[in-house]
């Protein structure tokens, strides 16, 4: 895969490079490239700090998780854990490809695969220490971040909600447990089970199609 760093990189090369994302059209790739350059300040790579240039992201309670997801090696398919220091445009596209619409005209299998991919992305967001399980602590962290917008809610209630959710997940996934069995955490299979009822297609999909206005970040 070519490392497309210079500004003279042609879109055609990009298209080839992004074979992982066949459903992103070349215009979209171009637009994303422009955005990438904006974010990186015309550098070939983006670092975490560059995300500070997105003002609207500040209001997002899970901002840190989102930023982290961009650098997560698991999402970039570069390794089982850890964070990259910087990503290039190809990586950027890889991450974006998780959010392309699920093409329902593909076969059942493909749809299932896409869905799994997206869920895996989500899983990685929860499972921050890359051990393959979402532990109570990680879950709590998520809940606290989600509730962080409301100053009226204390930490304990957030924690207890996380505990309740974990409990629920445990009961969904494991059912009856042996007395000495220990519930480690939510694995990816359990995660899939939880998500069975929820319609991910409508949610994890960014409308690349209507790009009428591209908000300038500066």
């Amino acid at each position, binding site marked *: 895969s070519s490392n497309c760093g210079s500004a003279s990189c042609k879109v055609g090369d990009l298209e080839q490079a992004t074979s992982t994302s066949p459903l992103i059209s070349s215009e979209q790739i171009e637009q994303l490239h422009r955005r990438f350059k904006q974010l990186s300040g015309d550098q070939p790579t983006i670092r975490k700090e560059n995300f500070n240039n997105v003002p609207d992201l*500040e209001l997002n309670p899970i901002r840190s998780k989102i930023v982290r997801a961009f650098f997560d090696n698991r999402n970039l398919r570069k390794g089982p854990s850890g964070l990259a220091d910087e990503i290039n445009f190809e990586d950027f596209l890889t991450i974006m490809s998780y959010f392309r619409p699920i093409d329902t005209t593909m076969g059942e299998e493909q749809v299932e695969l896409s869905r799994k991919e997206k869920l895996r992305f989500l899983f990685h967001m929860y499972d921050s220490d890359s*051990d393959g399980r979402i532990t109570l602590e990680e879950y709590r962290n998520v809940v606290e971040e989600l509730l962080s917008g409301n100053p009226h809610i204390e930490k304990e209630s957030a924690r207890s909600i996380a505990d*309740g959710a974990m409990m629920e997940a445990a009961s969904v996934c494991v059912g009856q447990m042996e007395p000495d069995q*220990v519930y480690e955490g939510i694995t990816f299979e359990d995660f899939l089970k939880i998500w069975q009822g929820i319609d991910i297609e409508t*949610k994890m999909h960014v409308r690349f199609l209507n790009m009428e206005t591209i908000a300038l970040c500066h």
Partner: protein
Amino acid sequence: MGRKMFVTFSPWNWLLLLAALECSEASSDLKETATSTAQHVPNAWFAAASSEPDERISVFELDYDYVQIPYEVTLWILLASLAKIGFHLYRRLPGLMPESCLLILVGVLVGGIILGTDHKSPPVMDSSIYFLYLLPPIVLESGYFMPTRPFFENFGSILWWAGLGALVNAFGIGLCLYLICQIKAFGLGDVNLLQNLLFGSLISAVDPVAVLAVFQEARVNEQLYMMIFGEALLNDGISVVLYNILIAFTKMHKFEDIEAVDILAGCARFVIVGVGGVLFGIVFGFISAFITRFTQNVSAIEPLIVFMFSYLSYLAAETLYLSGILAITACAVTMKKYVEENVSQKSYTTIKYFMKMLSSVSETLIFIFMGVSTVGKNHEWNWAFICFTLVFCQIWRAISVFALFYVSNQFRTFPFSIKDQCIIFYSGVRGAGTFSLAFLLPLSLFPRKNLFVTATLVVIYFTTFIQGITIGPLVRYLDVKKTNKKESINEALHIRLMDHLKAGIEDVCGHWGHSQVRDKFKKFDHRYLRKILIRKNLPKSSIVSLYKKLEMKQAIEMVETGILSSTAFSVPRLAQRIQRIKRLSPEDVESMRDILTRNMYQVRQRTLSYNKYNLKPQTSEKQAKEILIRRQNTLRESTRKGHSLPWGKPAGTKNIRYLSFPYSTYSNPPSAGRDVRAAESTDDDSSDPGVLSIKFSTPSRVSSLQRRRQTQEGIPMRRLHRGGKTFNFGYQRSASQEEEVGAGRRAALGPKPLFHTVDEEYESGGESEEESSAVGSRWTADHGLSREHHKSHSPLLQRK
């Protein structure tokens, strides 16, 4: 059409009915037994031996005329209420047919009684009564209870569908009927085009909300629900506007005078009326929200303000011939958010209940009038007209649904399926609004008014009964895509997370996505609107404050009775294995979900259960009771004996609850806290049934940091029970954090999790409280706070 604009502000139906009655010169007759002899002279039945009743003081008198109207109206309403009670007692019935069926039947019954007892002329529904008194509550209620977020998310589709749908239907039906009228054989030659158009406009006003209850239990998906709701909301307004415009046209007696200019003017007027009404409503909404900011000390008048301002918006709009309906709807939608935060809990409940009550009363009265008019004698039955009306109603609704949705599906990310469209088509039930408009047609302009009224009645009956009853099975048959009604906590969390993720990704890729608009509005709202419209020093969320009050009270009581001791209180059983997985009881899930839905950043109202006819009980009251009960159980258990069982009750009992409220939920950190357990061994004898003991084994690389954090997690609970001091601390902490938070950036700067197990800080393994992450220095403030928090923890810890 002569709507007299009374300047009086009295909203009391009865008084104006009384006035109307006097205007229409109804003579009143009681049931024959009572006033057979004397009509206006007080009866002197039991007068003691007097042959001149006028001269002696009568011991017992009867004067029915005086109270007739309020009396009868009250009786009708009571009758309808009794019928509703009966309706709901039989559980299966509400799922079978819409409640409006019941109301119609009651109306027919009353009409029958009135006819049967030969009551001279029952109170007449006058157009001013309808438009000034009966209609506003109905519209207000539907505007107030509308779920705003889904509405605005689907706003384009809804406007497209409701607006254009009403127009298409109105003109389609009108024109087709006109063509029918041209056919000589039906004897309808004198019904001209305008009259047909007017009829079309009033017959196209649907009331689909009435059927919502029927397929609510089939759990229709949110989009569909919203379309139907939105249509109901806007439809009334649009058809009334259209009606008025066409009436104005009708008054221009000569058709030849109607030129293209007039039609253009009509269209322009349509738009202006609609938009102007909305603007009025928004202005009044903001004013009333602003006023509620200052009503802390006079909370009893808060409902009054809400209602009066809404009503005022309606009247003000009507004065300028703008759409009062749209005004009052916009007012309700605008002010709801701010008012709900400002007013006291009781006022809030009062407002909701009162609104439901008023609208219920209005609707009941309208249906009774309808019933009376059904049974009455002024009907003109014309087979052709009526049958074709029915047919065209269905056809045109089908056309409008499928055509308009086809178009809007091109622009929607997630189009409506054919099944959804069938449901929308089939839910085109006509209701009270249609009847009123028909009934109030001015006879002078519509010599064949009875024909129209009859046709309207037939359509209403047909759609309400037949469609209303069969739509339930139809929905189930079509197996419409269901939303998960029982949304678990997990789902609520995940879905919210996804929304944020999506918004974040859209931000990153510079895409002005859907949620961006919402975010922008929220930002604007926080920065400016809320500062102006919301009270300062709001108490905390009501559940929390309520619970704290209870806790405080109990703590005091316990001190007084000397029960307060170190062993009496439960403390987290840390690091226990899961003995058995308890399913969370539904109330707990409900309460958690409630907290989640109300407090998660960008609160999203997922609860879609709207019932036109009653309110669901407030969850927070139930919760308060529950807290109290649990608490008392806890105390009872803990004072009984030292249990080592974590659950404190025999395993057989079902009521092992999970306490989901602050200061009594003991979330047990992962197992690494072995030392913690040692630390709290003295308190192991607790028997709080609410203790949640899950063991989650942590990954092997547990740092000491994490362990320390977990210890500290356990602390707050204990501090709590050493007396109410923690409350102050808790308050302080949140208060100071609030100050940290400041006005505009509240979201991002909220109380940051004390224990950051995620991200780079953790990975670096250092003392993350000290380090600030890449996100910038603002975090240190919070961390500074948490550091204080930790420090105060440590003395207690060191005591071990």
